[in-house]
């Protein structure tokens, strides 16, 4: 047995060898720790921690170098191959959950599947001591089945007898074909369901795998953000997203907590999966905002060189490019052009978002609502431009179906306001919109199906005010046609139609047709 003091040196030596074998992955140096849980290793924030106790225990059967090498091979394969990132992890878990319908069982099945994939990848590519390590590990029922599978697909003897049918069925899955992992994990989960039920009966689901579980601690908060974005895009409805995300509520809250300014929910909040769904979905679309246009400054600035000709004034001659000579064709003179500057209200104005949540609109918590997604994208675009957003969410405003959020930069508050669903009739109150007007003339973003009872009042309001208006309508009906006709001559109103998700990126916020030709 190697003394503990020597183990650090051995680990350094083995780590260099493992890194070289795996083509130098960008991982920090692993450490040996006193693990609280009875697991071989943990990965937190990319750092691999190996359990001293486990290494010591296994050193009774194998050389310490081999134990360390096998553990590092296992950990590095997870990092390099499966799950690779949080998005893949979430996808695999969601497929397992579809089959097993139980959080703990789905997590366990996902953990084992990822172990099988990464270990098999490692053994198929490298001469790894992993099989030797597995020969001596203590095993649960599920471990025995998985090791029986290893015997079959790796062609080694790990001392397992039995599990013929399960290992035969599991051996048919193409673990090394990444494009078929979702299909494979479904079949994997189906085959091991019986064993997981046995483990559940003996409280085995709460115990981590002997090689360590796969918590979200191993991912950075950026990876979790990206994974959520991808998963929101893949989820057909908010319900599907919510069901999956609630299983990882604590971990996601933990990961999103430190970044108040990012797409996180901020501190002290419970996770509202529906809001998170629209946040992450909106993150995938970035809408451009037209800035307030530039205007001529009246001052002339040197713009480009042109050859000097006889008769042209001398004061603009550039001696540095004229070789000190005054000769037509050689001497260069500056051509001046009038400069452009931003107007008095340079940059992006604040935005007031008017979102229709009447009964004719989709309930954003049940189905993907293009109205809410569109509004979320608009809010996101303005917030990214460092300005404030106010929300007026209305159905039958006169009967109390309205929510007014004053100008704010609190992302979660803004999203909560746009995700609120009233149902019922559609009537807005101009006093509410007026209360959100400011001296800096905010932009207005309206998203509705235009079936507004007092639409003509709104049309008159837009005619009388100078705000840049981006009006987005869902579907097509006579009210939409009326609105389009009435606004046809208004240059500060842009109208877009959204029929599907793909229409959303075409929206340009604050676009004014007058300067489209000059600036765009």
């Amino acid at each position, binding site marked *: 047995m190697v003394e503990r003091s020597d183990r650090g040196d051995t680990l350094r030596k083995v780590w260099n060898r493992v890194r*070289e074998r795996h083509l130098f992955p960008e991982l920090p140096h692993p450490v040996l720790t006193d693990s609280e849980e009875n697991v071989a290793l943990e990965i937190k924030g990319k750092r691999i921690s190996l359990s001293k106790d486990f290494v010591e225990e296994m050193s009774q059967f194998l050389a310490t170098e081999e134990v360390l090498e096998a553990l590092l091979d296992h950990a590095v394969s997870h990092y390099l191959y499966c799950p690779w990132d949080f998005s893949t992890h979430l996808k695999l878990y969601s497929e397992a959950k579809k089959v097993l319908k139980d959080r703990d069982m789905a997590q366990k099945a996902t953990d084992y599947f990822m172990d099988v994939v990464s270990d*098999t990848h490692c*053994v*198929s*590519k490298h*001469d790894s001591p992993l099989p030797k390590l597995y020969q001596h590990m203590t095993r649960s029922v599920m471990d025995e089945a998985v090791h029986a599978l290893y015997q*079959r*697909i*790796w*062609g080694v003897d790990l001392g397992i007898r039995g599990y013929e049918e399960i290992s*035969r*069925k599991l*051996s*048919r*899955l*193409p*673990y*090394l*074909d990444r494009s078929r992992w979702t299909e494979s994990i479904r*079949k994997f989960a*189906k085959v091991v369901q019986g064993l997981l039920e046995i483990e559940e009966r003996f409280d085995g689901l709460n115990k981590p795998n002997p090689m360590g579980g796969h918590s979200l601690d191993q991912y950075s908060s950026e990876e979790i953000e990206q994974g959520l974005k991808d998963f929101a895009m893949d989820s057909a409805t908010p319900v599907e997203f919510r069901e999956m995300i609630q299983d990882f509520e604590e971990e996601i809250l933990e990961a999103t907590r430190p970044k108040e300014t990012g797409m996180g929910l901020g501190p002290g909040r419970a996770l509202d999966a529906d809001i998170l769904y629209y946040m992450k979905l909106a993150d995938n679309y970035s809408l451009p905002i037209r800035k307030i246009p530039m205007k001529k400054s009246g001052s002339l600035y040197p713009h480009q060189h042109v050859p000097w000709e006889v008769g042209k004034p001398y004061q603009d001659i550039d001696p540095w490019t004229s070789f000190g000579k005054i000769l037509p064709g050689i001497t260069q003179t500056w051509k001046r052009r009038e400069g452009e500057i931003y107007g008095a209200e340079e940059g992006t104005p604040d935005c007031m978002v008017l979102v229709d949540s009447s009964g004719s609109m989709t309930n954003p918590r049940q189905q993907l609502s293009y109205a809410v997604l569109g509004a979320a994208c608009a809010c996101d675009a303005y917030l990214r431009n460092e300005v404030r957003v106010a929300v007026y969410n209305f159905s039958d405003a006169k009967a109390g179906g309205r929510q007014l959020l004053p100008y704010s930069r609190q992302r979660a508050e803004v999203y909560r306001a746009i995700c609120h669903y009233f149902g019922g009739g559609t009537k807005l109150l101009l006093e509410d919109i007026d209360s959100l007007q400011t001296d800096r003339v905010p932009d207005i973003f309206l998203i509705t199906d235009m079936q507004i009872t007092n639409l003509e009042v709104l049309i008159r309001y837009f005619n009388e005010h100078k705000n840049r208006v981006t009006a987005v309508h869902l579907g097509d009906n006579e009210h939409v046609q009326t609105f389009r006709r009435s606004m046809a001559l208004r240059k500060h109103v842009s109208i877009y139609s959204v029929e599907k998700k793909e229409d959303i990126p075409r929206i340009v916020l604050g676009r004014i047709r007058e300067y489209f030709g000059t600036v765009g």
Partner: protein
Amino acid sequence: MRNPFSDFRILPYQKREIPLERIVRAKEDVMDKIVGGYLRLVEDEVKDLVWLVEHSRVVKAYSAAVKGIRDLQYDVDDIEEFCAELDSSSRIPYMISGPAGIYVSALVNHAQEDRIVLRLREYQRTFHFLGYRLPEGKVLILQGDVGDFIGAGLSGGRLVVEGSAGNWCGAGMMKGEILVTEHAGQSTGEWMRGGEIHVDGRIRSVGKTLFGGKIYQRGKVLAPQDLSGEI
């Protein structure tokens, strides 16, 4: 002087192959052949996308299915996977219940294993014609509810349905045994010539024409004593 590129020297790499790759390749090869055989059968049988259950067509379809799988080496896992493919895969553009069930029956009847269990409970679709002509010495256990014509033309095998069977269960069976743990539909045992049908639940109606064999409901003989039909 030390070569500055020594860290980037070519590492010796030996292409390794583990048994998994061979297993997966062989399995995919077999599945391609099974799926191909089924698609050919469907194309031949269902030219107008309509398949009528007529005795001659059933016999012809079964013969064609057997011909298609004659030289194939497959096992029960392949049959199970083929059922899963029929249920949800994009590889099979159309699943026409009659030929699909007959094709699965042909696979079961010619499999190496004598005892085959199919977990149909997991599938969305209903399978018909399973256990068609199940030969002597074979035991087929169907877990979950099944469709019509289950065990039709049974030829000595033992068919267990752990669930309910549809109409025409055991139609024209020659010999052998069918056990249904729940209910059976209309015309159970129609044209049967021999063998036994045991239904633990309720039989909706017994076939009008029986040439032999026995039908039991909850342990009591229904036919040949009572051939009237409605229970």
